[in-house]
């Protein structure tokens, strides 16, 4: 971003106005102002999302796709309108490519169970990186156990970056699928998706992108990324839990068998055999998370009212500030310093275990995550059993980073 664009972005951004939209940010914990630095685990919700959910339940609620009466039609149209919002948000070609799931985890399991069991055979290779979240690891391990396919690993550099040359070494003629995070939930590393797509497609493999963190921090255009599947969860994107999205290319989704059977996903049901509905209904068995989907639509509307370039510049400034200030804490080691990283920062402090730090910080009102962050292979590679992690969202402030640093220095005095 050039200087002029950056200063324009600053003008368009008022973090206090954004904070005023998030009711929880004005509460106290342990009698201290809340400093919420765990948005990568789950983001807080703006009033606009909370009110949409309340209105949906109190005024417009009925089951979808079923009743020939006003409320069901209204509920159905709100639910389907949210699908169109998702489509536009990620620039998918068609709403038939937008499959609702209960989250990114279910979306990946869907692809592993449906695409994986239909098209991946013994000896075929699936390429993952060391930094994958367990939800983009365990489903492939299950597939390996079921089919005898092979998992191949692309390793991570010490600073947390991932090199395209390393993908080039691992992707080969046996590769059927590459499954990678867009942005690491531990390190903040942004992966070079377009280049990975080129390598995968050159050998006829498909590319699945776990966009849980990626979609939060930058605009996503699935066509420009040139991936084949893109998944994310609503709750990290300022929306409700219980809703996520699988985007897939229509031509691929069409060839995939259903994931679960039940109501809403059928065309005909008979003892002689059942036939499936078209996309996306084929993958949406049972009563869906109706209000959750509508809430996700409201979260997308909320994000769309912001200047996304300005939000990205704000988050970029926050991570730069954190990278500068955190090393003031004696004995602190930053984990994940790849160039261009997103606003997620792991660290360890010599002599103080991350869990103890998190417990002590909590008493100062500061919420950070401690543990393996569902990334045990990465922890192993980094040679740590756990890290502490602070993550920043559009409502985070520099003052909160100051509070984090002050609380860390105090915690260290108690623990070390």
């Amino acid at each position, binding site marked *: 971003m050039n200087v002029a664009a950056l200063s324009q972005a600053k003008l368009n951004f008022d973090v206090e106005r954004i904070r005023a939209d998030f009711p929880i940010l004005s509460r106290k914990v342990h009698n201290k102002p809340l400093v919420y630095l765990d948005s990568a685990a789950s983001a807080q919700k703006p009033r606009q999302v909370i009110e949409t959910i309340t209105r949906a339940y109190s005024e417009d609620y009925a089951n979808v796709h079923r009743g020939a009466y006003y409320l069901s039609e209204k509920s159905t149209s709100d639910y389907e309108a949210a699908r169109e919002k998702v489509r536009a948000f990620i620039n998918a070609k068609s709403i038939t490519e937008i499959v609702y799931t209960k989250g990114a985890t279910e979306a990946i399991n869907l692809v592993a169970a449906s695409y994986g069991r239909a098209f991946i055979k013994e000896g075929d290779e699936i390429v993952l990186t060391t930094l994958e979240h367990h939800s983009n690891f365990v489903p492939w391990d299950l597939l390996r156990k079921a089919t005898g396919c092979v998992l191949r690993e692309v390793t991570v550099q010490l600073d947390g970056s991932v090199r395209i040359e390393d993908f080039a070494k691992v992707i080969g003629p046996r590769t059927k699928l590459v499954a990678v995070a867009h942005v690491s939930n531990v390190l903040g590393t942004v992966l070079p998706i377009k280049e990975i797509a080129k390598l995968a497609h050159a050998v006829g493999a498909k590319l699945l992108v776990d966009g849980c963190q990626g979609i939060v921090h930058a605009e996503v255009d699935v066509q420009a990324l040139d991936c084949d599947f893109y998944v994310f969860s609503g709750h990290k994107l300022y929306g409700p839990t219980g809703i996520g999205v699988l985007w897939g290319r229509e031509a691929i989704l069409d060839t995939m068998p259903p994931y679960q059977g039940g109501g809403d996903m059928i065309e005909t049901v008979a003892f002689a055999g059942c036939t499936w509905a078209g996309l996306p209904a084929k993958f949406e068995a049972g009563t869906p998370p109706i209000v959750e989907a509508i809430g996700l639509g409201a979260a997308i509307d909320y994000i769309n009212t912001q200047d996304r370039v300005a939000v990205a510049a704000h988050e970029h400034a926050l991570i730069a500030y954190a990278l500068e200030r955190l090393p003031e804490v004696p004995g602190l080691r930053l984990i994940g310093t790849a160039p261009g990283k997103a606003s997620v920062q792991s660290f360890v402090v010599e002599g103080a275990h991350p869990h103890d730090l998190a*417990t002590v910080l909590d008493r100062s009102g500061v919420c950070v995550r401690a543990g393996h962050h569902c990334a045990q292979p990465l922890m192993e590679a980094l040679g740590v059993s756990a890290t502490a992690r602070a993550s920043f969202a559009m409502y985070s402030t520099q003052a909160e980073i100051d509070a984090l640093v002050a609380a860390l220095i105090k915690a260290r005095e108690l623990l070390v």
Partner: protein
Amino acid sequence: MSANAQTKEPDDLRSLYQEIILDHGKHPRNLRQVENFTNQAKGNNPMCGDKVAVTARVSPAGVIEDLAFEGKGCAISIASASMMTSALKGHSVQAAKRLFAAVQGLCTGKTDVEGAQREVPELANAIGELAALSGVRQFPTRVKCATLPWHALVSCLDGGDTATTEK
């Protein structure tokens, strides 16, 4: 609140991180593998990835001749393992199991120190020290940190090989 009190840690933090806990956490006793061990088990807290391996040499008469642990973890789990291994050397397997129940009671608030000492009178002094672990009561997510090494111990004495805090 006086100016002085404001700079102090909240009381529940002080009772969690008492001097004795921090001391055992930083300078753990019996951090090794028992030579010629007869029993062993690994404890695993899948929520945080903390791991502890307990080894013991138990005599045919059921006396714990030596007890030690290896592992990585937070101050609470390491201190707990260190105090546990210090307390139980020379005691019977049967006393160790009663002490496990007493410590669990202390950590969850179901027992107080006197109650625990009545249950395991032969380890009354050790319980006086182990009472420091009861600071975790105010921190529900940390109770498992304190009990992890004990789960591994019981599994080890029962001849199992793994224990988890998620049962």
